[in-house]
């Protein structure tokens, strides 16, 4: 049977039978894989085996007849070791993995692998606040799933203008002018940047970015839960 080599990020691990583990992996070229790692259960933890979390590895595997293939070998390429030294950041890392896992039930494309790896790199080195990284990540999941809200024109069709206040219409995935609305020009501008940026590190220097991110979070979070999972 043909052996395939690819880069991979671990999304999860579970027990299987007496001696085996099943890994869920995200790859750039083969989407999401479920692979059996035979005989590794309890022999030693795979934390040191190249298929640990917050890492990118090169893996060799054989496709299975059913849904689960077999993992042959792994080689650690990069371990984002600094994520784990801050607890809130570690938990955020796991949360992002979980969100991406839920959002990619169908076979995900390369962009999802790039998104997760980019998120790890940001978490590992960046001074960007957790709230910013989370809202950016959710926005990217929405964008990749084709659910970017209308951030240029309101529901009625007029351009969004700085003088107005707006409220968000989930049915229309767009803003509606509302004198008592909660969203200002600054909020909408921030949302444009969050949906449009390839990295949250680029947004970290925006003035009052934490406040803007906190204000955007309920909206983006709700959209993610509604449109993705």
């Amino acid at each position, binding site marked *: 049977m043909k052996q395939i080599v690819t880069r991979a990020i671990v999304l999860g691990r579970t027990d299987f039978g007496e001696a085996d583990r099943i890994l869920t992996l995200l790859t750039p070229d083969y989407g999401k894989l479920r692979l059996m790692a035979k005989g590794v259960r309890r022999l030693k933890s795979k934390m040191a085996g190249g298929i640990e979390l917050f890492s990118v590895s090169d893996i060799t595997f054989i496709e299975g007849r059913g849904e689960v293939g077999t993992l042959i070998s792994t080689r650690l390429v990069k371990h984002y070791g600094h994520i784990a030294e801050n607890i809130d950041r570690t*938990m955020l890392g796991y949360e992002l993995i979980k969100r991406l896992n839920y959002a990619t039930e169908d076979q995900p494309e390369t962009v999802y692998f790039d998104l997760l790896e980019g998120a790890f790199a940001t978490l590992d080195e960046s001074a960007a606040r957790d709230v910013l990284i989370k809202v950016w990540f959710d926005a990217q999941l929405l964008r990749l799933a084709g659910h970017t809200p209308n951030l240029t024109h309101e529901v009625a069709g007029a351009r969004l203008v700085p003088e107005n206040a707006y409220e968000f219409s989930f049915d229309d995935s767009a803003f509606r002018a509302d004198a008592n609305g909660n969203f200002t020009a600054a909020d909408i501008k921030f949302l444009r940047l969050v949906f449009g940026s390839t990295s949250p590190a680029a947004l970290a220097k925006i003035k009052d970015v934490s406040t803007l991110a906190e204000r955007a979070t309920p909206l983006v979070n709700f959209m993610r839960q509604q449109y993705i999972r």
Partner: protein
Amino acid sequence: MHILFIEPDRLLARTYRQALELAGHTVHVAATAQAAVQAADEQRPDVVILELQLVGHSGIEFLYEFRSYDDWQAVPVVVLSLVPPGEFAGSRQLLAEQLGVHNYLYKPHTSLAKLQRTINQYTPVA
């Protein structure tokens, strides 16, 4: 009880082990996350005491690995750490719900006697 004590500092580990053994427990000390998983595999612990600041892999990563094994999902875990509780206030709920950690002890505020009292809560009923 058999205690798996995950503590990277050799001197602290020796002190804690001595105190717990004097109280009648058996203690296995592991300095790293990997060694801790292997130790748990060799002898299932009745309770795990865990420092979060480890070399290479953090205590949280250990917990995710540990809880991914069916047999160990119900093992009580007490965090005894140099990390002040306020530093991960945002994650407490997640830690409790996902990783089953309900007891946090801050090392500078935790005497050996307090540790002992906490451990005693997990004594299996005969």
